[in-house]
Every structure is written in C-alpha cells, then in structure tokens.
C-alpha cells in the first residue's frame, strides 16, 4: 500500500471539535390518556475536546436522550444546541455508534467507511487518503474486502469507529458500544479507544451501565436518575491519562470515585425499585450486597 501521507497531527488539525448544550429538555411519549414521561427537565453540557460519560441504570432513558442528541427525535420541550446553533434533525456533526453494529451487511469494510463521503458526493483524493489512514489506524487494512459477518465483534466496532471518524463529526456519540464484547476484548477496546481519543481530542459522549468502563474512559461523569431521567450528579475524573486497567484497580482515587458514583446510583435504584421496575430490582440486589460487605 502506498505510504500514507496524513499523520496524526495533521488529522488532529483537521478536527473542529464541537460543544453540545442541552437545556431543560423533556421528552414524553403517548397522548393525553397514556402519557409516559422518559426525560424530565434535563440540562447538561458536553464540553469541547472532552470525553463525557453518562452512566445510569439500564432502562433509565439514556437511549432516548441519545436519539434526541442525534436528532432522530424532537424533544417535547427544551432545546439542544451544537456550537450555539439549535439542532434540527440528524447531521454529520453528531454521529452515533449503536449498541449493536450498524455496519451495512451488504457492503465490505471499505465501502462502509466510504459511505459518508460518497453519500455527500465529497469523494476527493484527500478523503480516500483519510479513509486509507483510518483503516490502517484501526488495524483493518487487510480486511477491507471482507463483509461485516466475516469480522469478529471487536473488529466490527473498530470498522464502525473508522466509518464515523472519516466524516469528521463535531461530537461522537457512543451508546454502550462495547457491551456485546467478551471481557478481555472489552478491556483492550477501552485502552484502544482511550488512546484514539487522546490522539484526536474530538468531543466524545459515551453512554454505559458499567462503572469500571465509565471511570476508565471519562474526563467528566454524568450520573443519571432513573426514569424519568435527569442529571443527578456530575463528577470530574481527574485521573491522569493514559490509564490502564491495573492502575485503576490499585489507584485509591479511582476506587473513591467508584464508590461515590455507586452510592448515587444506589439511591436512584431504590426509588425506582419501589415502583417495581425489574431491572432496578436486580440492581438494588447487587448493590446492597456489594456495599454491605465492603
């Protein structure tokens, strides 16, 4: 393959990281008789060049918030602005990585990555070079002709990262992207993804239910209440980067943050547990055992 001219700092220069502002957003479904409120008066900011992680018990409305940020749905009230401009519908400035892979099964890896530029008719020598560079970056250069079904879970995730990055989004939104992977590949993906973020410093918004994943990746941690969801607490994670799994196990500051976040999550779960939500019941069960023992 030809030597790839674009190098990391050139890539970093081309990125115009964005800032997302969510103010008093609410979202509910159904009409007057059967209203279910999913998001209530939720306000937070996703700062430029920062990796913001959102954590909350499963089924608390995080995915709804993601659909609002990405513009797939309109909020019932409140506004979402990117770099000051109000958001209207999906756009290349906010790209989403879903929980299950959304690679087009009928396109090989190269066509998947090139989908964005081709859709917008922006195929130039420079974009093909960037695609080449990104494919090398995610280690899939020799898998370009393979179809998604021929790639392992970890490789599909990396291909999807490349497909999103080529469109140079102002904000990258990830919805529990590593949930399906086995524990070992997951940790490797954490390290890989954190290094990638470190290099590009693109604004990232990462959603998860796994507290260890949140602490490993986050600059800022948003802890969400249960449904109807709103921001319960914001923790600054001032751990040095690059972080490794081993360090975090031994680092007292990391464990302290972990316990702090868990106790907030526990309060939230107790509230919804009284309302009989199945997921919350499991959560409370798990948490009470953990806290009472340690």
């Amino acid at each position, binding site marked *: 393959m030809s030597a790839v001219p674009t190098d990391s700092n050139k890539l970093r220069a081309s990125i115009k990281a964005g800032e997302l502002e969510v103010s008093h957003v609410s979202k509910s479904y159904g*009409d007057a*008789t*059967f209203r279910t409120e999913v998001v209530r008066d939720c306000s937070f900011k996703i700062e430029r060049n920062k990796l913001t992680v959102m954590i909350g018990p499963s089924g608390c409305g995080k995915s709804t918030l993601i659909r609002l940020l990405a513009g797939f749905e309109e909020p019932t009230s409140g506004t979402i602005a990117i770099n000051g401009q109000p958001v209207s519908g999906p756009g290349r400035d906010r790209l989403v990585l879903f929980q299950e892979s959304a690679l087009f099964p009928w396109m090989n890896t190269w066509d998947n990555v090139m989908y964005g530029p081709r859709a917008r008719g922006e195929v130039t020598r420079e974009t093909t070079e960037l695609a080449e560079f990104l494919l090398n970056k995610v280690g899939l250069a020799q898998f370009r002709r393979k179809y998604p079904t021929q790639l392992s879970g970890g490789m599909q995730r990396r291909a999807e990262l490349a497909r999103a990055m080529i469109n140079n989004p102002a904000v990258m939104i990830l919805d529990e992207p590593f949930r399906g992977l086995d524990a070992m590949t997951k940790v490797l993906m954490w390290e890989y993804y954190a290094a990638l973020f470190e290099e590009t410093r693109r604004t990232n918004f990462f959603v998860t239910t796994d507290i260890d994943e949140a602490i490993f990746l986050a600059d800022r941690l948003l802890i969400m209440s249960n449904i109807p969801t709103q921001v319960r607490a914001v923790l600054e994670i001032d751990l040095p980067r690059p972080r490794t799994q081993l360090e975090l196990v031994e680092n007292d500051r990391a464990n302290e943050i972990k316990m702090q976040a868990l106790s907030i999550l526990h309060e939230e779960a107790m509230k919804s547990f009284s309302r009989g939500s*199945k*997921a919350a019941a499991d959560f409370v069960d798990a948490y009470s055992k953990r806290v009472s023992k340690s």
Partner: protein
Amino acid sequence: MFTYRFSKWLRSPTPYLMLVGFALFFGAWFLLSEVFKFWRFASLPGPRQLLVEWFNPNPVYGMSLYTPDYYMHVWMSLRRVLYAFAISTCLGVPFGLFLGWSKAFKEFTFPVFETLRPIPVLAWVPLAIVMFKGDETPVIFLTTLASFYATALNTMLGVQSIDPSFPRAAACLGASKWQIFRHIIVPGALPFIFTGLQISIGVAWFSLVAAEMVSGEYGLGYLILASYVNVQYVVIIIGMVSVGIVGYASSALVRLAGDYLMQWRVRELALGSGR
C-alpha cells in the same frame, strides 16, 4: 390495552385510507363493468350484480346465500380440505419430526421426498384419476399431497431451528432419547409446525380448486368452472369470493389454534423482546 390501541387506530388516518382503497377498487370495477362497459370489462359482472345475485332470496341462477345448493358446494369443498388437512397433518408432522431428528432416517427418505417435490401437484391430476377410481379420492389425494409437502418441510425446519443446547441440557438432566423427543423436540418445533400448517391449508385450497375443476362432481372449484361453461358469469364471481372467504377463515382458525397452544410465545412476544 386493546381499547387504547383501537382508539389510537381510529384517530390515525389508516382506517380512512383503507376505505379510500376499497372505494377506488370497487368503484373502478363498477364503473368499468356496469356503467361504461369498457372494452373487455363488459363481459364481466360488476360488484352490484354480484351483490344482488348473492343476497337474492331466489337468485336467477339458483346460487345464493339462501339456496341449499350453494351451501352444499361450500360444504363439499370444505369437507375435502378438512380431510386432506387432517391426513397431511397426521402424516406430515411425524414425518417432518423424524426427518429433523434422526440423521439416518433423513438420509434414506429425504432424497425421494426432494425428487418428487418439484413435480407440480397438479401434474398428478391425471395419474391420480388413474390410480384412484371414483371422483372423491383423487381430489382428496391431490389436496393431501400438496399440504403434505408444506407440513413435512416446515416441521423439519422447526426441528433444525431448535438451539442444540436444549437437547443437550435435557440429556444432562438425565432425559432419555425418547423423553428428549417428547419434551424438547416437539414443543421446540411447534412454532415452525404452525407456520407449516398455515401454508399447508393455503396450498390445500390452491390445489383443491384446480382438482375440482378438472375432475370434481361438486365443490366450489367445480361450481366456478361449470358456471363458466353454462355462461352464468355472476356465479363464477360468487364462487371465487366464497373460496376466498372460506379459505381465509380456515387459515385464521389454524392461527388461533397456534396461539392457544403456544401460550409461552404469546406472553413472551407481548412483553416485547424477552429481557
């Protein structure tokens, strides 16, 4: 919950568009056949003529909802389909279960099954008449053959669709081969079996109509063709509509039986994706 969905459905545009669709279809048919008598449509009876004849206490051609002959034809066809459906289910389901369950059985019988399957069922008509004397048996044989293929094949697919860890788990729990067959293979294959039964009743009606046209004495297929020969064109449409209604009703019954027998699927689907 049902009332909520129904009231939501009423407020959405769907029912009104449905009426628009029906209006367009029947309106066009009416205008072309009865009003303008346009081109070839002239020879076809219009919806109004159909309804008049069908609901007429003493119809012109003796075939309406009030005449016993009409119900005799319907019953003859229905009886044949029920016979064929019963035979094909009793033969097809066990055959399909063994095809899926034992590799040896499949390797010996499936080649013959597969070589005979491409032969269109209706190509058997003359041979059926030769093989089975009389009028009734050939028609029932043909209808049974058609639905037998569908039932056996889908039952086999049902057995193959079962996650291999189920029979293994049962084996671990000490179940014998026969107990695994009864407790795991049959209930596991049930969803596919019912898909097969629905297809098979549809195919049964498909072949019955043709078989009746070619060799039947009574039945809706025979009625449709005979009324063409006797130039009673309205009765053709009555026959077609009746076959459609009875066919739809019988497959709806099979669907209901399926839902009743597979409570666990109904409750699981109702909860959305199983947690």
